[in-house]
């Protein structure tokens, strides 16, 4: 069993047994469901909107080479500089070099899952650069030294008491049970840092090819500040974030907000084209964009699952997933949790060690229904199971299915097998049959009938 799998099983078992925590997560998501339904209902046609969003991403992803070339040319004509990274290590090196070149003493970051994917903070800290997360949830998780629990709501698993204790310990503030006061503590703490930081690092939600802008969606204003105050702005983005035109945002910006957070539109949706321009009053002197592959081209090469590159990271699939709600975000052990994470992580980190995530699904399809860009999530989980069986065939599966195939075609053998099976059925619980032990923990084996169906049938005719 791979490490990631045994950690998954251990964590999932613990969380799913914690009824109080599960209830807390459900309550936290309750407000989201309510608002999502209100704002979805305001669309004249949510399903058509999904069609449009899906097509916008499909046409960009399926012409990725041309759309990217177009974007990069336009982005650079706006005065930005593009860097290409084949993998996480290359992306880290590019960013570290840029930070070093800027003689940075302090780095401020806004929320960006791609930086989590490449473990950027670790690398920056090891190289001696202090880096501070400015999104409230990410700031809390950074203080805890813990990965985000949910890629849109990073600390949704924490109660206010825990956050208050954390702030008291690290920031020396007085305990409080008011979310408002806790938010203000973080606000006051971080404001100085926006002003003193030399480098601001952000992600990107969309790369707009026809205008060469990057689009950043947020609620708190921390990304706005991160891209406004420091001298150097570095953005990191996966290559799949590119879209054809600024008009595509007409559908994508509202849908990202409604599907992701139950909002009509998030508080700030900002388009950046280059650093401060002549005549503008403030803004960074340099604007760098790091474009990351890191196995995205591998997903692209799989036409069956290519649509998982349409993902706009709204998190809607997590919010509706019965597995996520029961096992929580940390059990996955991945950068991207929930159904989308279970689909793409095997591509990003290897099917062999991560195929167990394909089983972290009830195949109910709630994720597919919730996805604003119509990614066929639950079928992709099935495909990953199939693909995993090819890569690492399960010995039990092979023996069981091979034997079954052989026996079922031979009636006499089948009949004999049935007799043997009925006699030895009671011994089954003592044998190391996969999954049976878990099944029997809370269940009894049913009593076995003395006769086979064929015997019963024959007897009934003789009566």
């Amino acid at each position, binding site marked *: 069993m791979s490490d990631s799998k045994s950690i998954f099983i251990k964590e999932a078992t613990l969380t799913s047994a914690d009824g109080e925590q599960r209830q807390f997560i459900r309550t936290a998501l309750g407000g989201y469901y309510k608002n999502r339904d209100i704002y979805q209902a305001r669309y004249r046609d949510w399903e058509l909107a999904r069609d449009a969003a899906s097509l916008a991403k499909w046409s960009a992803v399926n012409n990725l080479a041309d759309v990217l070339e177009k974007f990069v040319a336009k982005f650079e004509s706006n005065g930005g500089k593009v860097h290409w990274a084949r993998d996480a290590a290359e992306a880290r090196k590019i960013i570290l070099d840029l930070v070093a070149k800027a003689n940075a003493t302090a780095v401020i970051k806004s929320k960006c899952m791609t930086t989590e994917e490449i473990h950027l903070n670790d690398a920056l800290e090891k190289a001696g650069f202090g880096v501070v997360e400015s999104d409230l949830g990410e700031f809390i998780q950074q203080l805890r030294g813990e990965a985000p629990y949910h890629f849109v709501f990073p600390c949704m698993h924490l109660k206010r008491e825990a956050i208050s204790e954390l702030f008291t310990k690290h920031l020396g503030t007085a305990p409080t049970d008011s979310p408002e006061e806790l938010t203000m503590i973080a606000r006051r703490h971080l404001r100085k840092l926006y002003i003193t930081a030399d480098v601001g690092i952000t992600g990107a939600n969309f790369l707009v090819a026809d205008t060469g802008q990057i689009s950043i969606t947020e609620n708190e204003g921390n990304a706005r500040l991160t*891209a406004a105050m420091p001298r150097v702005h570095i953005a990191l983005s996966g290559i799949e974030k590119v879209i054809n035109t600024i008009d595509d945002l007409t559908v994508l910006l509202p849908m990202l907000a409604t599907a992701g957070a139950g909002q009509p539109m998030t508080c700030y949706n900002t388009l950046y084209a280059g650093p401060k321009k002549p005549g503008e009053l*403030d803004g960074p002197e340099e604007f760098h964009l790091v474009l990351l592959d890191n196995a995205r081209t591998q997903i692209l090469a799989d036409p069956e699952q290519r649509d998982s590159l349409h993902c706009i990271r709204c998190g809607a699939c997590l919010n509706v997933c019965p597995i996520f709600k029961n096992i929580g975000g940390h059990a996955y052990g991945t950068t991207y949790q929930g159904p989308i994470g279970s689909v793409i992580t095997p591509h990003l980190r290897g099917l062999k060690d991560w195929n167990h995530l394909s089983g972290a699904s009830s195949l109910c399809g709630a994720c597919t229904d919730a996805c604003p860009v119509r990614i066929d999530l639950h079928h992709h989980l099935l495909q990953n199971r199939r693909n995993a069986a090819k890569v690492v065939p399960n010995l039990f599966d092979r023996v069981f299915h091979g034997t079954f195939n052989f026996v079922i075609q031979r009636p006499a053998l089948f009949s004999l097998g049935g007799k043997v099976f009925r006699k030895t059925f009671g011994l089954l619980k003592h044998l190391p049959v996969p999954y049976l032990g878990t099944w029997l923990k809370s269940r009894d084996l049913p009593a076995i009938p003395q006769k086979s169906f064929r015997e019963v049938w024959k007897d009934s005719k003789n009566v």
Partner: protein
Amino acid sequence: MSEARKEIMGRIREALKTPSPKPHLKGQSSKVTGKAWLPEVGDTHAHTMALLSDNLAKLKASFHPVENLDQAIALVKDLAQKKNWKNIAYHKNELVTPVALAIDGTAWAVDDAFSKDKLEAADVGLTSCVSIVAQFGAILVSSETSGGRGLSILPPVHVVIAKADQVVPDLAACFEQINVQFGGKMPSMLSFITGPSRTGDIERILVLGAHGPKELYLILVR
């Protein structure tokens, strides 16, 4: 061209040799171009204004339609007094300047060089805007025409002064206007501001003023 770029582009072109089918759509696929699915905006000016007002109220932004600039000046002056705004940062603009200068306090323009600390100490930022999208109650500001990047995000209060004819019904119209107004030369920042800064990161409970302004005022001059 960098080696990494060449290699990534090569991988992409190789991968795309196998086509993938169009997504399964619920509607008539060829017709999915329009914006007919977005939230209703109504077809009269009155509809648009009512929608804007309703959206801003839901967003907890403060909306004040006024008849003329004099009324706007009186209104902001009064607000400043009630809210104790003394340090007023603004950018030079035909609508914004007269309002800023009328406030009983120290008004200073970001058009002259300023330090980040000075802006951080401001009680309020006064700006113009590019347009206002009634469909979502979103106010579009730009780094070129709305006082740069910091003025609309760093001070704890943001007051926008705009003309009623800057209101557009929907996002589609707004992007059309952006394309016409800025064409191939986009400002370095265009930002839709949809209500005061907010977060729900603690127990998914809404708190206003996470990092950006806690209060947002839109003064709309007819």
